[in-house]
């Protein structure tokens, strides 16, 4: 079970990096501007995921103060 959890937790980071690389590839390798824009937005949102992924806590809630929760 621990092994599965460890693999899944790496999976999140690997997919984030895959999105980043795919966005970069579209921006560099595709000539069409609309396609470049979509690639750029993929690249941009993968950067968000790189911030948000390591900040996730299991069992915690969104950062809105509430008396029922202690972990955010």
């Amino acid at each position: 079970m621990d092994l599965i959890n460890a693999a899944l937790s790496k999976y999140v980071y690997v997919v984030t990096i895959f999105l980043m690389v795919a966005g970069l590839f579209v921006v560099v390798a595709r000539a069409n501007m609309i396609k470049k824009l979509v690639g750029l937005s993929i690249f941009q949102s993968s950067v968000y995921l790189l911030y948000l992924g390591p900040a996730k806590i299991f069992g915690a809630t969104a950062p809105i103060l509430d008396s029922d929760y202690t972990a955010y």
Partner: protein
Amino acid sequence: MELLISFALFTLLGVVTVAIVSQRNLVAVVILGSIYSFLIASVMVVLDAVDVALTEASVGAGISTVLLLAGLKLTRTRDYRGQDPNVVGALLAIAVGGALVWGSLVLPPFGAPDAPIHQHVAPRYIEGAGTEIGVPNIVTAVLADYRGFDTLGETTVVFVAGMAVLLLLRRSSLQSAPPSDDEQPAMSGDLVLRVGTKLILPFILLFALYVQFHGDYGPGGGFQAGVIAASAVILLGLTLGLRRARRIAPPALAHAMIPLGVLIFAGTGVATMLLGGDFLEYAVLAHEAKEGHHLGIMLVEAGVLVTVSGTMISLFYAFVERGR
């Protein structure tokens, strides 16, 4: 359970990204991009980042899809021809990807409460949002109060970007004939769309106001509410015609709103200085510090709302009018 949901959503993200990279039909690329944004918003909800999820859902899945489709109509392109495999791009992507995977090996396990990211400023903000600012939504407290200066910069970026796009698109609208007002909108023939739009419009605007004024207590704030309010005007313009949209939100008003919001934001800062505090030190706005913080956050968020909605509506008009 959370891990399983993340697993499924991240897998879907990867699949959609592969489809975007390989797809050659540009309409399909834009629609897939909209699906991608919606998936990202869902992932952000799972990762407990509800404010940014609301932004991504309204900006990424909503407005930017409309603007990209308008761009496709302007450039009159549907497909692009195949090209030789790009070796340089592939090598660059592989090199960057390898470096990033190598770096990710030392990242803490996903979902761990003792990760370094939770050890430094985060506890300070979680502690202070309730006691110093008196705002339950910590994101709003950080965005509008602790980091109000950064948000002023962000609002100015929206202002400058909106101005730049308007200037770029305006040049040719002077050369071409003025747009005629009696033209039928593209989708006016569809009865379901017209009636549905009329039914749903008041609720979109009401939701925008809720997101704006509930931003202290729940996810939301000026950025999200501005985009949602603009999407109501854009929906009206797409289904019932530009003339109806112009009557509710005249382009001149939308243009004026872009600098007005920045002025409200910066004016709040100047007002706190005149009252004897520092720039954007809200505590001096009222007799009690917490009330001052509430008032300051409300004013600043109103400024953001005005600039963002003005920019989005102006961009929509600029794109659609150039397409005639």
